[in-house]
């Protein structure tokens, strides 16, 4: 029951995303291309964050002399 509601809500969010980015006007294969590009870029950003965030945070803390 809760899963069906969650699915409906997610589906509405996807619908809003498609409307706002004007993907609504594009054909299905164009939407696939755009979504793949977007997911690729987002995945790369997340991966970079995952790899480099610990170093960055240590460097910042070191700069502010919170950690030695």
């Amino acid at each position, binding site marked *: 029951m809760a899963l069906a509601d969650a699915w409906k809500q997610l589906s509405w969010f996807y619908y809003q995303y498609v*409307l706002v*980015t*004007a*993907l*609504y*006007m*594009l*054909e299905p294969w164009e939407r696939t291309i755009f979504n793949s590009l977007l997911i690729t870029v987002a995945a790369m950003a997340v991966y970079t964050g995952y790899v480099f965030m610990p170093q960055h945070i240590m460097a910042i803390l070191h700069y502010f002399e919170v950690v030695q």
Partner: protein
Amino acid sequence: MIRADEHHLRNGTLKAHSDQKQQGSNSLKNGFHVAGKVQKNANGDSFHQPRVRGEDSFEEAPMYVAVLTYMGYGIVILFGYFRDFLRAVGLEKCHQAQEREEQKDFVPLYQDFENFYKRNLYMRVRDNWNRPICSLPGPVFDVMERVSDDYNWTFRLTGKTIENVINMGSYNYLGFAENNVDFLKTVAEETRQYGVGVCSTRQELGNLSIHENLEQLVAEFLGVESAMAFGMGFATNSMNIPALVGKGCLILSDELNHTSLILGARLSGATIRVFKHNNMQSLEKLLKEAICSGQPRTHRGWKKILIMVEGIYSMEGSLVRLPEILALKKKYKAYLYLDEAHSIGAVGPTGRGVTEHFGVDPNEVDVLMGTFTKSFGAAGGYIAGKKELVDYLRSHSHSAMYATAMSPPVVEQIIRAIKCIMGVDGTTEGQRRVRQLSENTRYLRSRLKEMGFIVYGNQDSPVVPLLLYLPGKVGEFSRAMLKRKIGVVVVGFPATPIAEARARFCVSAAHTREMLDKVLQNLDELGDHIRVKFSRRRPSHRQELYNETDFERDS
């Protein structure tokens, strides 16, 4: 909003917002009919103080909406370039017209932005326009269902009809687009007498007695000396402005004037200067400059200065500031051309147009122009004014000399519509329709504003633009409304600025309260589902007239 109109005993003036729902269909409560007499034109006892017009509202949308709109257009344009590349390389078939092989080295025909826009943006949502209709465009109509197999490049009709779709797009302001046999009796009689084809121009053998009757009636209806009718509304503007002004004259035209006015102005060869929409300071600045410096190189005086404005602007729903323009016109000795295409029959307590709405004498406007297409349910246009002006046009207008005269059934339809509005045919049907239109307009506009939509324009104008902004939502709005059996007209670039796509509703006197309620309920649901309720009740930049330092149009 200024509520000074409460003190005037007029048609369709509903005292308080909350009273509107209780007043319902009993519109005689409004107390317009003083002692049962139908009040005629704005002259006579109505030369009281000019009526204060409600303010136009042009609410601005929140910033994120503008950003998302441009982002949406950006994405679709990028994909447009991508698809054009695929077509150029040959990976995709080009459905649109192309130059022939032998002409590939010539100046390209289809590479400008307009063609790009048409190929890549308009085609994708093209099914929202040019829908085939198979009944008369009354308050409800039937739409033929059509589907496309190749993303709107070609359509095929499935054979089914979508019936009883509520019509919110036709310019049927007073509901005269009807096929009721009783009302159309005189039209049938005149057709029996005159036939349908005239086969000649007005100047040659096409001047029928029914045309003379029509022109006298139009002049009487408007309260001016004389009028002349033409077969096509667009052609009335574009063919008659060249007859009125020429080289050495100056035309001051509003920013948002209709294409027919612009075309007429360009054809005439006069100098054209544009002032900001409804902005009297901008107009006054241009007038002062024109009179001080005269013609461009010789600095001689202008032969004529013609101010061209419209009664109701059809894309914005805003009303002209007539009293101020008349004051300016008198001060600087210019002429005024008022195009009442949408406002004749639709505003004013007895449907006489913006001159009556403002309580102004129609003889003060030099050239009154209007069309019969919108409120009268026929086709054609008229120009009215002083007798000398109209007689001059009879011999010098291109339309009179070269265009075929109006067809008799159409003329009779206009005559019967005008007689109905004036009350000459003995019923109060015309006045009832004018009141009903005014009520419907106020109701629809106030409810839409309540719901949180951004609606442009004046509270009295039956043209109601509802702003949608985002290109994706524009297409979805139109399709979803058709699924709910309501037909709307959505407009995007290039008819509107690129970031302000809208849906335009045209209220009709033939809409009943139930139809409007159904429309409003569906709009409410759809507005929530799609999220187009952007209003935050913030006044917009267009109203800050008195804070501007520069009234040049290009700033």
